[in-house]
Protein backbone atom coordinates (compact mmCIF):
# COMPACT_ATOMS: atom_id res chain seq x y z
CA UNK A 1 0.00 0.00 0.00
CA UNK A 2 1.30 3.40 -0.93
CA UNK A 3 2.53 5.57 1.87
CA UNK A 4 0.37 8.34 0.48
CA UNK A 5 -2.72 6.25 1.09
CA UNK A 6 -1.75 6.00 4.72
CA UNK A 7 -1.95 9.74 4.95
CA UNK A 8 -5.21 9.90 3.08
CA UNK A 9 -6.77 7.30 5.27
CA UNK A 10 -5.42 8.83 8.44
CA UNK A 11 -5.92 12.42 7.36
CA UNK A 12 -8.44 13.31 10.03
CA UNK A 13 -6.38 11.84 12.83
CA UNK A 14 -3.29 13.48 11.45
CA UNK A 15 -5.04 16.83 11.27
CA UNK A 16 -5.96 16.60 14.94
CA UNK A 17 -2.45 15.58 15.88
CA UNK A 18 -1.04 18.43 13.83
CA UNK A 19 -3.32 20.91 15.58
CA UNK A 20 -2.31 19.49 18.92
CA UNK A 21 1.37 20.02 18.18
CA UNK A 22 0.75 23.47 16.73
CA UNK A 23 -1.00 24.43 19.92
CA UNK A 24 1.85 22.99 21.93
CA UNK A 25 4.31 25.17 20.06
CA UNK A 26 2.14 28.21 20.52
CA UNK A 27 2.04 27.44 24.21
CA UNK A 28 5.76 27.02 24.43
CA UNK A 29 6.27 30.18 22.42
CA UNK A 30 5.74 33.66 23.79
CA UNK A 31 2.61 34.63 25.71
CA UNK A 32 -0.29 35.53 23.46
CA UNK A 33 -3.67 36.95 24.43
CA UNK A 34 -6.66 34.66 24.33
CA UNK A 35 -8.48 36.39 21.50
CA UNK A 36 -5.80 35.60 18.95
CA UNK A 37 -5.42 32.08 20.22
CA UNK A 38 -9.12 31.42 20.05
CA UNK A 39 -9.29 32.91 16.59
CA UNK A 40 -6.47 30.63 15.46
CA UNK A 41 -7.98 27.59 17.07
CA UNK A 42 -11.35 28.13 15.50
CA UNK A 43 -9.75 28.55 12.13
CA UNK A 44 -7.77 25.36 12.66
CA UNK A 45 -10.89 23.50 13.62
CA UNK A 46 -12.71 24.76 10.59
CA UNK A 47 -9.86 23.62 8.36
CA UNK A 48 -9.93 20.33 10.15
CA UNK A 49 -13.61 20.00 9.41
CA UNK A 50 -13.06 20.91 5.80
CA UNK A 51 -10.25 18.40 5.39
CA UNK A 52 -12.58 15.68 6.53
CA UNK A 53 -14.75 16.15 3.50
CA UNK A 54 -12.08 15.80 0.87
CA UNK A 55 -11.02 12.62 -0.91
CA UNK A 56 -12.83 9.65 0.54
CA UNK A 57 -11.01 6.36 0.34
CA UNK A 58 -11.78 3.11 2.09
CA UNK A 59 -9.30 0.68 3.53
CA UNK A 60 -7.73 -1.00 6.54
CA UNK A 61 -4.16 -0.46 7.65
CA UNK A 62 -1.90 -1.61 10.47
CA UNK A 63 -3.11 -5.14 9.93
CA UNK A 64 -6.73 -4.12 10.35
CA UNK A 65 -6.22 -2.17 13.56
CA UNK A 66 -7.34 0.92 11.75
CA UNK A 67 -10.17 0.59 9.29
CA UNK A 68 -12.07 3.37 7.65
CA UNK A 69 -14.77 3.87 5.08
CA UNK A 70 -17.10 6.59 3.91
CA UNK A 71 -19.51 6.08 6.80
CA UNK A 72 -16.73 6.29 9.35
CA UNK A 73 -15.42 9.43 7.72
CA UNK A 74 -18.88 10.90 7.82
CA UNK A 75 -19.19 10.08 11.51
CA UNK A 76 -15.85 11.70 12.19
CA UNK A 77 -17.00 14.75 10.25
CA UNK A 78 -20.03 15.00 12.49
CA UNK A 79 -17.72 14.98 15.50
CA UNK A 80 -15.45 17.57 13.90
CA UNK A 81 -18.43 19.79 13.25
CA UNK A 82 -19.57 19.36 16.82
CA UNK A 83 -16.24 20.30 18.34
CA UNK A 84 -15.94 23.30 16.06
CA UNK A 85 -19.35 24.54 17.17
CA UNK A 86 -18.52 23.86 20.79
CA UNK A 87 -15.28 25.76 20.62
CA UNK A 88 -17.01 28.75 19.07
CA UNK A 89 -19.73 28.64 21.69
CA UNK A 90 -17.31 28.48 24.60
CA UNK A 91 -15.60 31.63 23.35
CA UNK A 92 -17.21 33.75 26.00
CA UNK A 93 -16.07 31.39 28.73
CA UNK A 94 -12.56 30.79 27.44
CA UNK A 95 -11.78 34.42 26.70
CA UNK A 96 -10.96 35.01 30.34
CA UNK A 97 -9.63 31.56 31.11
CA UNK A 98 -5.93 31.03 31.90
CA UNK A 99 -5.26 27.66 30.31
CA UNK A 100 -7.01 27.98 27.01
CA UNK A 101 -4.51 25.98 25.07
CA UNK A 102 -4.36 23.17 27.57
CA UNK A 103 -8.10 22.99 27.42
CA UNK A 104 -8.00 22.55 23.67
CA UNK A 105 -5.17 20.05 23.92
CA UNK A 106 -7.24 17.89 26.21
CA UNK A 107 -10.38 18.21 24.15
CA UNK A 108 -8.56 17.44 20.94
CA UNK A 109 -6.67 14.46 22.28
CA UNK A 110 -9.92 13.07 23.59
CA UNK A 111 -11.37 13.61 20.14
CA UNK A 112 -8.38 11.85 18.65
CA UNK A 113 -9.06 8.92 20.93
CA UNK A 114 -12.60 8.82 19.69
CA UNK A 115 -11.45 8.77 16.09
CA UNK A 116 -9.23 5.78 16.77
CA UNK A 117 -12.03 4.12 18.65
CA UNK A 118 -14.47 4.66 15.81
CA UNK A 119 -12.17 3.18 13.20
CA UNK A 120 -10.74 0.54 15.49
CA UNK A 121 -10.48 -2.91 13.99
CA UNK A 122 -9.77 -4.76 17.18
CA UNK A 123 -10.49 -4.64 20.85
CA UNK A 124 -7.11 -3.28 21.81
CA UNK A 125 -7.47 -0.20 19.66
CA UNK A 126 -11.00 0.13 20.83
CA UNK A 127 -9.92 0.05 24.45
CA UNK A 128 -7.11 2.52 23.89
CA UNK A 129 -9.40 4.88 22.07
CA UNK A 130 -11.99 4.64 24.82
CA UNK A 131 -9.48 5.44 27.52
CA UNK A 132 -7.93 8.18 25.48
CA UNK A 133 -11.29 9.78 25.02
CA UNK A 134 -12.06 9.53 28.73
CA UNK A 135 -8.96 10.42 30.69
CA UNK A 136 -8.33 13.86 29.17
CA UNK A 137 -12.00 14.69 29.62
CA UNK A 138 -11.77 13.89 33.29
CA UNK A 139 -8.96 16.39 33.49
CA UNK A 140 -10.91 18.89 31.43
CA UNK A 141 -13.93 18.52 33.65
CA UNK A 142 -11.80 20.02 36.38
CA UNK A 143 -11.11 23.19 34.43
CA UNK A 144 -13.18 25.52 36.55
CA UNK A 145 -10.28 25.27 38.91
CA UNK A 146 -11.77 27.59 41.47
CA UNK A 147 -15.09 25.76 41.72
CA UNK A 148 -15.48 22.95 44.22
CA UNK A 149 -18.13 21.32 42.11
CA UNK A 150 -15.86 21.18 39.13
CA UNK A 151 -13.32 19.01 40.89
CA UNK A 152 -16.03 16.86 42.39
CA UNK A 153 -17.38 16.28 38.92
CA UNK A 154 -13.92 15.38 37.67
CA UNK A 155 -13.45 12.95 40.51
CA UNK A 156 -16.75 11.27 39.88
CA UNK A 157 -15.98 11.00 36.21
CA UNK A 158 -12.53 9.50 36.64
CA UNK A 159 -13.48 7.07 39.39
CA UNK A 160 -16.57 5.72 37.71
CA UNK A 161 -14.95 5.56 34.29
CA UNK A 162 -12.02 3.69 35.80
CA UNK A 163 -14.44 1.28 37.41
CA UNK A 164 -16.39 0.80 34.22
CA UNK A 165 -13.22 0.28 32.20
CA UNK A 166 -12.18 -2.28 34.79
CA UNK A 167 -15.37 -4.23 34.15
CA UNK A 168 -15.01 -3.68 30.44
CA UNK A 169 -11.53 -5.14 30.53
CA UNK A 170 -12.78 -8.05 32.57
CA UNK A 171 -15.29 -8.72 29.81
CA UNK A 172 -12.72 -8.24 27.07
CA UNK A 173 -10.39 -10.67 28.79
CA UNK A 174 -13.08 -13.32 28.72
CA UNK A 175 -13.86 -12.62 25.10
CA UNK A 176 -10.21 -13.05 24.37
CA UNK A 177 -10.11 -16.17 26.44
CA UNK A 178 -13.06 -17.76 24.71
CA UNK A 179 -12.36 -16.70 21.16
CA UNK A 180 -8.61 -16.36 21.17
CA UNK A 181 -8.55 -13.22 19.14
CA UNK A 182 -8.95 -9.48 19.55
CA UNK A 183 -9.79 -8.75 15.93
CA UNK A 184 -13.47 -7.98 15.39
CA UNK A 185 -13.76 -9.75 12.08
CA UNK A 186 -12.32 -13.00 13.44
CA UNK A 187 -14.28 -12.69 16.63
CA UNK A 188 -17.67 -12.47 14.91
CA UNK A 189 -17.44 -16.06 13.70
CA UNK A 190 -16.66 -17.43 17.14
CA UNK A 191 -19.26 -15.69 19.27
CA UNK A 192 -21.99 -18.09 20.30
CA UNK A 193 -24.42 -17.76 23.16
CA UNK A 194 -22.38 -19.70 25.67
CA UNK A 195 -23.03 -18.28 29.14
CA UNK A 196 -19.50 -17.00 29.61
CA UNK A 197 -19.55 -15.22 26.31
CA UNK A 198 -22.93 -13.75 27.12
CA UNK A 199 -21.52 -12.56 30.41
CA UNK A 200 -18.53 -11.10 28.64
CA UNK A 201 -20.82 -9.41 26.20
CA UNK A 202 -22.90 -7.95 28.98
CA UNK A 203 -19.77 -6.60 30.64
CA UNK A 204 -18.66 -5.08 27.36
CA UNK A 205 -22.10 -3.68 26.77
CA UNK A 206 -22.13 -2.15 30.22
CA UNK A 207 -18.95 -0.34 29.27
CA UNK A 208 -20.72 1.16 26.28
CA UNK A 209 -23.82 1.85 28.29
CA UNK A 210 -21.71 3.69 30.82
CA UNK A 211 -20.23 5.94 28.18
CA UNK A 212 -23.55 6.77 26.58
CA UNK A 213 -25.05 6.96 30.08
CA UNK A 214 -27.88 4.52 29.75
CA UNK A 215 -29.81 3.50 32.86
CA UNK A 216 -28.64 2.03 35.27
CA UNK A 217 -25.12 3.02 34.26
CA UNK A 218 -25.99 6.69 33.97
CA UNK A 219 -25.70 7.91 37.51
CA UNK A 220 -22.47 9.82 37.02
CA UNK A 221 -23.93 11.78 34.14
CA UNK A 222 -26.00 14.42 35.83
CA UNK A 223 -23.46 15.22 38.50
CA UNK A 224 -20.61 15.52 36.05
CA UNK A 225 -22.64 17.61 33.65
CA UNK A 226 -23.67 19.94 36.39
CA UNK A 227 -20.21 20.30 37.86
CA UNK A 228 -18.12 20.51 34.74
CA UNK A 229 -17.70 23.70 32.73
CA UNK A 230 -20.41 24.13 30.13
CA UNK A 231 -18.04 23.55 27.24
CA UNK A 232 -16.98 20.21 28.68
CA UNK A 233 -20.56 19.34 29.45
CA UNK A 234 -21.63 19.93 25.90
CA UNK A 235 -18.63 17.96 24.68
CA UNK A 236 -19.53 15.07 26.97
CA UNK A 237 -23.19 15.14 26.11
CA UNK A 238 -22.75 15.41 22.37
CA UNK A 239 -19.39 14.35 21.10
CA UNK A 240 -18.37 11.49 23.34
CA UNK A 241 -21.89 10.12 23.37
CA UNK A 242 -22.13 10.24 19.59
CA UNK A 243 -18.72 8.60 19.16
CA UNK A 244 -19.55 5.71 21.45
CA UNK A 245 -22.92 5.22 19.81
CA UNK A 246 -21.24 4.97 16.42
CA UNK A 247 -18.97 2.24 17.72
CA UNK A 248 -21.76 0.52 19.57
CA UNK A 249 -23.83 0.26 16.41
CA UNK A 250 -21.03 -1.24 14.37
CA UNK A 251 -19.95 -3.59 17.16
CA UNK A 252 -23.46 -4.85 17.81
CA UNK A 253 -24.28 -5.18 14.16
CA UNK A 254 -21.08 -6.88 13.08
CA UNK A 255 -19.28 -8.54 15.98
CA UNK A 256 -22.23 -9.70 18.01
CA UNK A 257 -24.59 -10.32 15.13
CA UNK A 258 -24.90 -13.93 16.17
CA UNK A 259 -26.28 -12.83 19.54
CA UNK A 260 -28.71 -10.42 17.97
CA UNK A 261 -31.90 -11.90 19.39
CA UNK A 262 -30.37 -11.71 22.85
CA UNK A 263 -29.07 -8.20 22.69
CA UNK A 264 -32.27 -7.10 20.98
CA UNK A 265 -34.07 -7.74 24.24
CA UNK A 266 -31.29 -6.30 26.36
CA UNK A 267 -31.13 -3.12 24.34
CA UNK A 268 -34.88 -2.71 24.35
CA UNK A 269 -35.07 -3.23 28.08
CA UNK A 270 -32.29 -0.76 28.74
CA UNK A 271 -33.81 1.68 26.29
CA UNK A 272 -37.17 1.75 28.01
CA UNK A 273 -35.57 2.03 31.42
CA UNK A 274 -33.43 4.85 30.18
CA UNK A 275 -36.30 6.78 28.71
CA UNK A 276 -38.50 6.40 31.74
CA UNK A 277 -35.88 7.16 34.37
CA UNK A 278 -34.42 10.01 32.36
CA UNK A 279 -37.84 11.59 32.03
CA UNK A 280 -38.78 11.06 35.63
CA UNK A 281 -35.61 12.75 36.79
CA UNK A 282 -35.78 15.52 34.25
CA UNK A 283 -39.19 16.81 35.28
CA UNK A 284 -37.87 17.77 38.70
CA UNK A 285 -34.68 19.57 37.75
CA UNK A 286 -34.09 23.26 38.20
CA UNK A 287 -30.49 23.58 37.11
CA UNK A 288 -30.38 23.99 33.36
CA UNK A 289 -27.32 21.80 32.82
CA UNK A 290 -28.64 19.06 35.03
CA UNK A 291 -31.96 19.27 33.25
CA UNK A 292 -30.27 18.93 29.89
CA UNK A 293 -28.25 16.05 31.27
CA UNK A 294 -31.34 14.06 32.09
CA UNK A 295 -33.04 15.06 28.89
CA UNK A 296 -30.00 13.76 27.01
CA UNK A 297 -30.27 10.52 28.97
CA UNK A 298 -33.82 10.18 27.74
CA UNK A 299 -32.64 10.90 24.22
CA UNK A 300 -30.15 8.08 24.53
CA UNK A 301 -33.05 5.80 25.33
CA UNK A 302 -34.61 6.66 22.00
CA UNK A 303 -31.31 6.13 20.25
CA UNK A 304 -31.11 2.68 21.79
CA UNK A 305 -34.56 1.88 20.49
CA UNK A 306 -33.34 2.82 17.05
CA UNK A 307 -30.33 0.57 17.51
CA UNK A 308 -32.55 -2.30 18.58
CA UNK A 309 -34.19 -2.11 15.20
CA UNK A 310 -31.09 -3.88 13.84
CA UNK A 311 -31.50 -3.03 10.19
CA UNK A 312 -30.07 -0.67 7.64
CA UNK A 313 -32.85 1.67 8.71
CA UNK A 314 -31.55 1.35 12.25
CA UNK A 315 -28.01 2.41 11.46
CA UNK A 316 -29.11 5.22 9.21
CA UNK A 317 -31.71 6.54 11.63
CA UNK A 318 -29.30 6.45 14.55
CA UNK A 319 -26.59 8.36 12.75
CA UNK A 320 -29.14 10.76 11.32
CA UNK A 321 -30.57 11.36 14.75
CA UNK A 322 -27.13 11.95 16.18
CA UNK A 323 -26.45 14.59 13.55
CA UNK A 324 -29.70 16.30 14.50
CA UNK A 325 -28.93 15.79 18.15
CA UNK A 326 -25.62 17.58 17.66
CA UNK A 327 -27.39 20.62 16.30
CA UNK A 328 -30.26 20.67 18.77
CA UNK A 329 -28.32 19.95 21.90
CA UNK A 330 -25.52 22.29 20.99
CA UNK A 331 -28.00 25.05 20.26
CA UNK A 332 -29.45 24.57 23.72
CA UNK A 333 -26.05 24.36 25.35
CA UNK A 334 -24.91 27.36 23.37
CA UNK A 335 -27.56 29.56 24.92
CA UNK A 336 -27.02 28.06 28.34
CA UNK A 337 -23.28 28.56 28.16
CA UNK A 338 -23.70 32.16 27.06
CA UNK A 339 -26.03 32.87 29.95
CA UNK A 340 -23.89 31.10 32.50
CA UNK A 341 -20.66 32.63 31.20
CA UNK A 342 -21.92 36.19 30.97
CA UNK A 343 -24.60 36.35 33.66
CA UNK A 344 -23.54 33.38 35.74
CA UNK A 345 -27.10 32.07 35.97
CA UNK A 346 -27.90 28.42 35.39
CA UNK A 347 -31.33 27.84 36.91
CA UNK A 348 -34.55 27.44 34.99
CA UNK A 349 -36.20 29.83 37.42
CA UNK A 350 -33.67 32.46 36.34
CA UNK A 351 -34.92 32.03 32.80
CA UNK A 352 -38.34 33.39 33.67
CA UNK A 353 -39.33 36.21 31.35
CA UNK A 354 -36.16 35.55 29.39
CA UNK A 355 -38.07 36.39 26.25
CA UNK A 356 -38.66 39.96 27.31
CA UNK A 357 -34.95 40.71 27.49
CA UNK A 358 -33.35 38.39 24.94
CA UNK A 359 -35.94 37.43 22.34
CA UNK A 360 -33.39 36.07 19.91
CA UNK A 361 -31.75 33.73 22.39
CA UNK A 362 -35.15 32.74 23.68
CA UNK A 363 -36.26 31.74 20.20
CA UNK A 364 -33.07 29.79 19.61
CA UNK A 365 -33.46 27.93 22.87
CA UNK A 366 -37.13 27.29 22.11
CA UNK A 367 -36.35 25.90 18.70
CA UNK A 368 -33.64 23.75 20.18
CA UNK A 369 -35.94 22.42 22.88
CA UNK A 370 -38.69 21.74 20.37
CA UNK A 371 -36.23 19.88 18.24
CA UNK A 372 -35.17 17.84 21.25
CA UNK A 373 -38.81 17.21 22.06
CA UNK A 374 -39.47 16.24 18.46
CA UNK A 375 -41.86 18.89 17.29
CA UNK A 376 -42.15 19.54 13.58
CA UNK A 377 -40.96 21.26 11.51
CA UNK A 378 -37.70 21.00 13.44
CA UNK A 379 -35.41 18.15 12.53
CA UNK A 380 -35.91 16.50 15.89
CA UNK A 381 -39.32 15.34 14.76
CA UNK A 382 -37.87 13.47 11.83
CA UNK A 383 -35.08 12.05 13.92
CA UNK A 384 -37.39 10.66 16.60
CA UNK A 385 -39.90 9.45 14.07
CA UNK A 386 -37.32 7.50 12.14
CA UNK A 387 -35.73 6.10 15.28
CA UNK A 388 -39.04 4.74 16.47
CA UNK A 389 -39.85 3.62 12.97
CA UNK A 390 -36.63 1.63 12.87
CA UNK A 391 -37.23 0.32 16.37
CA UNK A 392 -40.61 -1.05 15.36
CA UNK A 393 -39.03 -3.15 12.64
CA UNK A 394 -39.22 -6.31 14.72
CA UNK A 395 -42.80 -5.59 15.66
CA UNK A 396 -42.58 -5.03 19.39
CA UNK A 397 -45.41 -2.55 19.57
CA UNK A 398 -46.12 -2.31 23.28
CA UNK A 399 -42.62 -1.10 24.09
CA UNK A 400 -42.94 1.40 21.29
CA UNK A 401 -46.20 2.55 22.78
CA UNK A 402 -44.52 3.06 26.13
CA UNK A 403 -41.74 5.01 24.48
CA UNK A 404 -44.19 7.11 22.51
CA UNK A 405 -46.20 7.91 25.62
CA UNK A 406 -43.01 8.84 27.41
CA UNK A 407 -42.54 11.50 24.80
CA UNK A 408 -45.49 13.18 26.46
CA UNK A 409 -43.57 13.46 29.72
CA UNK A 410 -40.60 14.81 27.86
CA UNK A 411 -42.90 17.37 26.28
CA UNK A 412 -43.89 18.40 29.75
CA UNK A 413 -40.43 19.35 30.85
CA UNK A 414 -39.33 20.91 27.62
CA UNK A 415 -42.47 23.00 27.56
CA UNK A 416 -41.81 23.88 31.17
CA UNK A 417 -38.70 25.75 30.11
CA UNK A 418 -40.54 27.39 27.24
CA UNK A 419 -43.26 28.39 29.65
CA UNK A 420 -40.71 29.90 31.98
CA UNK A 421 -39.20 31.94 29.19
CA UNK A 422 -42.39 33.14 27.56
CA UNK A 423 -45.20 33.06 30.07
CA UNK A 424 -43.87 33.57 33.56
CA UNK A 425 -43.16 36.99 34.98
CA UNK A 426 -39.97 37.88 36.79
CA UNK A 427 -38.83 40.86 38.87
CA UNK A 428 -35.21 40.80 37.78
CA UNK A 429 -34.98 38.87 34.52
CA UNK A 430 -31.64 38.06 32.96
CA UNK A 431 -30.36 41.26 31.45
CA UNK A 432 -29.70 41.88 27.80
CA UNK A 433 -26.83 39.73 26.59
CA UNK A 434 -24.34 40.93 23.99
CA UNK A 435 -23.66 37.84 21.90
CA UNK A 436 -20.03 37.42 20.78
CA UNK A 437 -19.53 36.95 17.07
CA UNK A 438 -18.37 33.36 17.32
CA UNK A 439 -21.36 32.35 19.38
CA UNK A 440 -23.58 34.06 16.87
CA UNK A 441 -22.08 32.01 14.07
CA UNK A 442 -22.37 28.83 16.11
CA UNK A 443 -25.98 29.39 17.06
CA UNK A 444 -26.80 30.32 13.50
CA UNK A 445 -25.25 27.13 12.21
CA UNK A 446 -27.18 25.12 14.78
CA UNK A 447 -30.51 26.70 13.92
CA UNK A 448 -29.95 26.27 10.22
CA UNK A 449 -29.00 22.70 10.88
CA UNK A 450 -32.12 22.12 12.92
CA UNK A 451 -34.30 23.42 10.14
CA UNK A 452 -32.51 22.00 7.14
CA UNK A 453 -31.52 18.56 8.33
CA UNK A 454 -35.10 17.47 8.72
CA UNK A 455 -36.89 18.98 5.82
CA UNK A 456 -34.33 18.15 3.17
CA UNK A 457 -34.38 14.45 2.76
CA UNK A 458 -31.14 14.08 0.83
CA UNK A 459 -29.17 14.10 4.08
CA UNK A 460 -31.02 11.08 5.32
CA UNK A 461 -30.81 9.40 1.95
CA UNK A 462 -27.06 9.97 1.91
CA UNK A 463 -26.62 8.43 5.33
CA UNK A 464 -28.86 5.57 4.37
CA UNK A 465 -26.82 4.89 1.27
CA UNK A 466 -23.68 4.81 3.39
CA UNK A 467 -24.95 2.60 6.15
CA UNK A 468 -24.40 -1.14 5.76
CA UNK A 469 -27.34 -3.49 5.48
CA UNK A 470 -27.79 -5.65 8.54
Amino acid at each position, binding site marked *: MMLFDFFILLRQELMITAIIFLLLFIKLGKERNNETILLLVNIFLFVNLAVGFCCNTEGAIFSGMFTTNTLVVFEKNILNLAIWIISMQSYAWLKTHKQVIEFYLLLLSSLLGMFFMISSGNLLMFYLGLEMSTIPLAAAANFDLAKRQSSEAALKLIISSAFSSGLLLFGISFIYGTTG*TLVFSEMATQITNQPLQLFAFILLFSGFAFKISAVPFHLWTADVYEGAPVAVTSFLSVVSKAAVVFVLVSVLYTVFKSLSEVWYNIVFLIALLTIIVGNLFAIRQNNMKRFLAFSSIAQVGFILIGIAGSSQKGTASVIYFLLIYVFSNLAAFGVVSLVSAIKGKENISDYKAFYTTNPMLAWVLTIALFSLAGVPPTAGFFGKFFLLLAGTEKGSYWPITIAALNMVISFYYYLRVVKAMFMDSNEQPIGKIVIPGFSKIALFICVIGIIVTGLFSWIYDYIFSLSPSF
Partner: protein
Amino acid sequence: MNEIPLSYILFVSTALFFIGMYGLFTRRNMITMLMAIELMLNSVNINFVAFNKYLFPEKLDGIFFTIFIITIAAAEAAVAIAIIIHLYRNHKSIDVDDASELKF
Protein backbone atom coordinates in the same frame (compact mmCIF):
# COMPACT_ATOMS: atom_id res chain seq x y z
CA MET B 1 3.76 -26.72 36.04
CA ASN B 2 1.14 -28.19 33.80
CA GLU B 3 -0.72 -29.79 36.63
CA ILE B 4 -1.97 -26.39 37.63
CA PRO B 5 -5.02 -26.02 35.40
CA LEU B 6 -5.94 -22.66 33.95
CA SER B 7 -9.04 -22.43 36.06
CA TYR B 8 -6.95 -22.17 39.22
CA ILE B 9 -5.25 -19.07 37.93
CA LEU B 10 -8.58 -17.71 36.80
CA PHE B 11 -9.84 -18.37 40.31
CA VAL B 12 -7.07 -16.17 41.66
CA SER B 13 -7.66 -13.40 39.17
CA THR B 14 -11.42 -13.42 39.61
CA ALA B 15 -11.09 -13.39 43.36
CA LEU B 16 -8.65 -10.50 43.13
CA PHE B 17 -11.00 -8.64 40.85
CA PHE B 18 -13.86 -8.83 43.24
CA ILE B 19 -11.65 -8.07 46.20
CA GLY B 20 -10.75 -4.91 44.38
CA MET B 21 -14.41 -4.22 43.70
CA TYR B 22 -15.20 -4.74 47.35
CA GLY B 23 -12.52 -2.23 48.20
CA LEU B 24 -13.92 0.26 45.76
CA PHE B 25 -17.34 -0.11 47.28
CA THR B 26 -16.32 0.21 50.88
CA ARG B 27 -13.29 2.49 51.11
CA ARG B 28 -14.21 6.08 51.85
CA ASN B 29 -10.73 7.39 51.26
CA MET B 30 -10.28 8.27 47.61
CA ILE B 31 -6.71 7.12 47.43
CA THR B 32 -7.61 3.70 48.73
CA MET B 33 -10.39 3.54 46.19
CA LEU B 34 -7.74 4.15 43.60
CA MET B 35 -5.71 1.27 44.99
CA ALA B 36 -8.74 -0.96 44.72
CA ILE B 37 -9.05 -0.07 41.08
CA GLU B 38 -5.44 -0.97 40.54
CA LEU B 39 -6.14 -4.37 42.01
CA MET B 40 -8.99 -4.91 39.58
CA LEU B 41 -6.86 -3.96 36.63
CA ASN B 42 -4.12 -6.31 37.78
CA SER B 43 -6.49 -9.22 37.97
CA VAL B 44 -7.46 -8.51 34.39
CA ASN B 45 -3.79 -8.54 33.49
CA ILE B 46 -3.43 -11.93 35.05
CA ASN B 47 -6.34 -13.11 32.94
CA PHE B 48 -4.79 -11.92 29.74
CA VAL B 49 -1.40 -13.39 30.43
CA ALA B 50 -2.86 -16.67 31.56
CA PHE B 51 -5.13 -16.99 28.54
CA ASN B 52 -2.34 -16.11 26.26
CA LYS B 53 0.01 -18.61 27.81
CA TYR B 54 -2.38 -21.48 28.23
CA LEU B 55 -4.68 -21.24 25.27
CA PHE B 56 -3.28 -19.16 22.48
CA PRO B 57 0.48 -19.21 22.71
CA GLU B 58 1.00 -18.75 19.00
CA LYS B 59 0.23 -15.02 19.14
CA LEU B 60 1.13 -12.51 21.79
CA ASP B 61 -2.15 -10.56 21.89
CA GLY B 62 -2.64 -11.07 25.59
CA ILE B 63 0.84 -9.96 26.47
CA PHE B 64 0.56 -6.76 24.50
CA PHE B 65 -2.84 -6.06 25.89
CA THR B 66 -1.36 -6.40 29.34
CA ILE B 67 1.39 -3.95 28.55
CA PHE B 68 -1.02 -1.36 27.32
CA ILE B 69 -3.32 -1.89 30.24
CA ILE B 70 -0.43 -1.27 32.59
CA THR B 71 0.50 1.92 30.80
CA ILE B 72 -3.03 3.24 30.75
CA ALA B 73 -3.54 2.27 34.35
CA ALA B 74 -0.55 4.41 35.16
CA ALA B 75 -1.90 7.36 33.24
CA GLU B 76 -5.32 6.98 34.77
CA ALA B 77 -3.86 6.78 38.23
CA ALA B 78 -1.82 9.89 37.60
CA VAL B 79 -4.77 11.94 36.46
CA ALA B 80 -6.92 10.59 39.22
CA ILE B 81 -4.37 11.49 41.82
CA ALA B 82 -3.95 14.94 40.37
CA ILE B 83 -7.68 15.42 40.59
CA ILE B 84 -7.77 14.07 44.10
CA ILE B 85 -5.05 16.45 45.20
CA HIS B 86 -6.84 19.38 43.67
CA LEU B 87 -10.04 18.27 45.30
CA TYR B 88 -8.21 18.03 48.57
CA ARG B 89 -7.16 21.63 48.17
CA ASN B 90 -10.74 22.67 47.57
CA HIS B 91 -12.51 20.43 50.06
CA LYS B 92 -9.79 19.97 52.64
CA SER B 93 -10.82 16.32 52.71
CA ILE B 94 -10.41 13.25 50.62
CA ASP B 95 -13.35 11.41 52.08
CA VAL B 96 -15.47 10.48 49.08
CA ASP B 97 -18.69 11.04 51.00
CA ASP B 98 -17.73 14.66 51.48
CA ALA B 99 -17.61 15.08 47.73
CA SER B 100 -21.33 14.64 47.21
CA GLU B 101 -22.69 18.12 46.80
CA LEU B 102 -24.03 17.32 43.35
CA LYS B 103 -27.01 15.07 43.73
CA PHE B 104 -30.68 14.42 42.95
